[in-house]
């Protein structure tokens, strides 16, 4: 939900402009070179420095989050060492005011971060795509209604609603948080997918599939969706990053998970325990930097993918 939309490519925004629906310039569907060029795609992907850099950074952090805890001596909450110790060999990221190992917290936080990204992005993607597919494909009244719903959710400031939901339900776990985030970050996906579906729907092969007696669901699944895989993947990447940022904001204002560590929570605690004024920079720099690097890499990877899927950009 944070800062993802402007980078989603022009296809997204343009779709709502009256009169130009379907005529989006070089949208992923239009710009995509037709035809089973999975190998070619891979070829370009593996030679695109943006994709590679992004992927390496993200996977690196993922790996750290996954296997890191196995190599740590302290649990994130343990009073492990002297309070307020600056980075040292024992504590690579220093310790908190309580003497907790910042690195251990960071590693644990990475896990939540990826979980939130994956779940939140996943939920938003599923909702957005379903609504987008159905609205775009069915058209008519259903489309109007879903569109209306999309617009309503779009206009309601999601973050504020999230704050309320979070406060209301009070279930403060990472998966729940991800779920709420997902529920409020789908509208632009729905819009974009709808626009793509609209343009795909008019393709003759859809009619031909109908003439072969294939049902709606099968058509959506086997004819429409596969044409948008590249786009859907990019969408998911953006949602992933967006969810992480939103979760970090929620954690920061104290609506984070209560029984888990997350990068946002680390920042929250650092600030609450006056790390700024006490000069404990090692407490609040790593979590923010971690998020920035992960999300930034995702975004950069997304540009790379855009270039891979979209020959026009590749020329640039």
């Amino acid at each position: 939900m944070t800062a993802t939309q402007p980078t989603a490519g022009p296809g997204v925004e343009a779709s709502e402009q009256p009169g130009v629906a379907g005529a989006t310039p070089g949208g992923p569907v239009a710009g995509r070179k037709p035809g089973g060029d999975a190998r070619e795609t891979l070829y370009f992907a593996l030679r695109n420095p943006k994709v590679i850099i992004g992927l390496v950074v993200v996977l690196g952090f993922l790996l750290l989050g996954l296997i890191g805890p196995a190599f740590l001596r302290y649990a994130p909450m343990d009073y492990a060492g002297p309070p307020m110790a600056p980075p040292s060999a024992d504590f690579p990221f220093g310790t908190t005011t309580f003497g907790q190992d910042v690195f251990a917290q960071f590693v644990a936080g990475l896990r939540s971060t990826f979980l939130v990204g994956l779940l939140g992005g996943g939920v938003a993607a599923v909702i957005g795509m379903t609504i987008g597919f159905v609205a775009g494909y069915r058209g008519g009244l259903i489309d109007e209604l879903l569109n209306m719903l999309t617009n309503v959710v779009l206009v309601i400031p999601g973050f504020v609603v999230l704050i309320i939901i979070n406060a209301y339900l009070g279930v403060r776990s990472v998966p729940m948080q991800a779920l709420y985030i997902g529920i409020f970050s789908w509208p632009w996906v729905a819009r974009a997918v709808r626009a793509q579906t609209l343009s795909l729907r008019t393709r003759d092969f859809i009619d031909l599939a109908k003439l072969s007696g294939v049902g709606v669901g099968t058509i959506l699944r086997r004819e429409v969706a596969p044409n948008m895989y590249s786009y859907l993947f990019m969408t998911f990447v953006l949602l992933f990053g967006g969810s992480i940022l939103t979760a970090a904001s929620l954690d920061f204002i104290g609506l984070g998970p209560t029984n888990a560590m997350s990068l946002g929570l680390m920042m929250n605690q650092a600030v609450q325990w006056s790390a700024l004024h006490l000069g404990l920079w090692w407490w609040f720099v790593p979590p923010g930097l971690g998020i920035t690097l992960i999300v930034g890499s995702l975004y950069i990877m997304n540009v790379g993918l855009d270039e891979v899927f979209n020959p026009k950009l590749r020329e640039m």
Partner: protein
Amino acid sequence: MRGYLARKTLVYGLTFVVAVTLNWLIPRLMPGDPVQRMVARAAVQHPETIASMTDYYERTFGLDLPIWQQYLNYWAALFRGDLGTSVWLFPAPVSEVVLDAVPYTLGIMIPAILLSFVVGNTVGAMAARSRWLDNVALPVGYLVTAMPYMWLAILLAWGFGVALGWFPVAGGYDFGLVPQWSWSFAADLLQHWFLPFLSLFLVSLGGWAIGMRNLIIYELESDYANYLAALGAPKRLIRQYAFRNAQLPQITGLALQLGTILGGALVTEIVFAYPGLGKLVLSAIQNQDFFLLQGTLLFVVIGVLVANFVIDIVYVLVDPRTRTGLTGGTA
């Protein structure tokens, strides 16, 4: 154009109703009871006292009526500009509390949005024409966009506020000053405003720049650009056209972004203890002040709606396609 606006208005009307209804539901759904809060706050123990206070506050908050009547009253009060009474700041009217905070939020949001939009688009347009700039601006833009709002704010507060001491890191104006029309006060106001503004500005900047860059690349590939080039038009003219056209989706994007930016503004305010709506929302939640929360949210929603509407009008003015009545059929 009429159709276009009519459709937009319908969406806005609907959103408004939904938002207001959700809003109304908040205190009724949230755990905790505002009346209880008020009574508990008085820390009385007498059964009679508790009962009479409970009664009293129920009446004050209008919670003693049948539910449908509460709903209707809510709408009626809304149109009178009455958002109820704050629990946390009892007995201050919510509308006053909110109105006091609004200028601060708008004060950082509007300049940050407009400036980041203008500057971002310009940088993006420049990046689209220079490979060198592109290679620098793009990654930087992405990293800035990927920064959590509060982290950038924390870094700024730490660097410019705590370490260098150039800017204050809390409050809307110096605690030793009295608001008035004077240069020194304005300067102080500006000094307090600067860091929150800057952090919001910076985070939004990258997104616009990148969006613009991509759009311009698409536009430069478009038929009309090719045609102009074939007729010997200089690059300048073509870029100018491309820039203009690329701004249209950016404007739509702006509408889409408002909610998000607002979320960012809230978080930023919290970091800088800036006395705007963000802090209000947080306090309202922390103090279970549903009526304040309600009022703030409503204000925010209306603000976003109005802003969206303005953007739509602007859009109609700059994009002739909306005026031709070519509102999308479903084909």
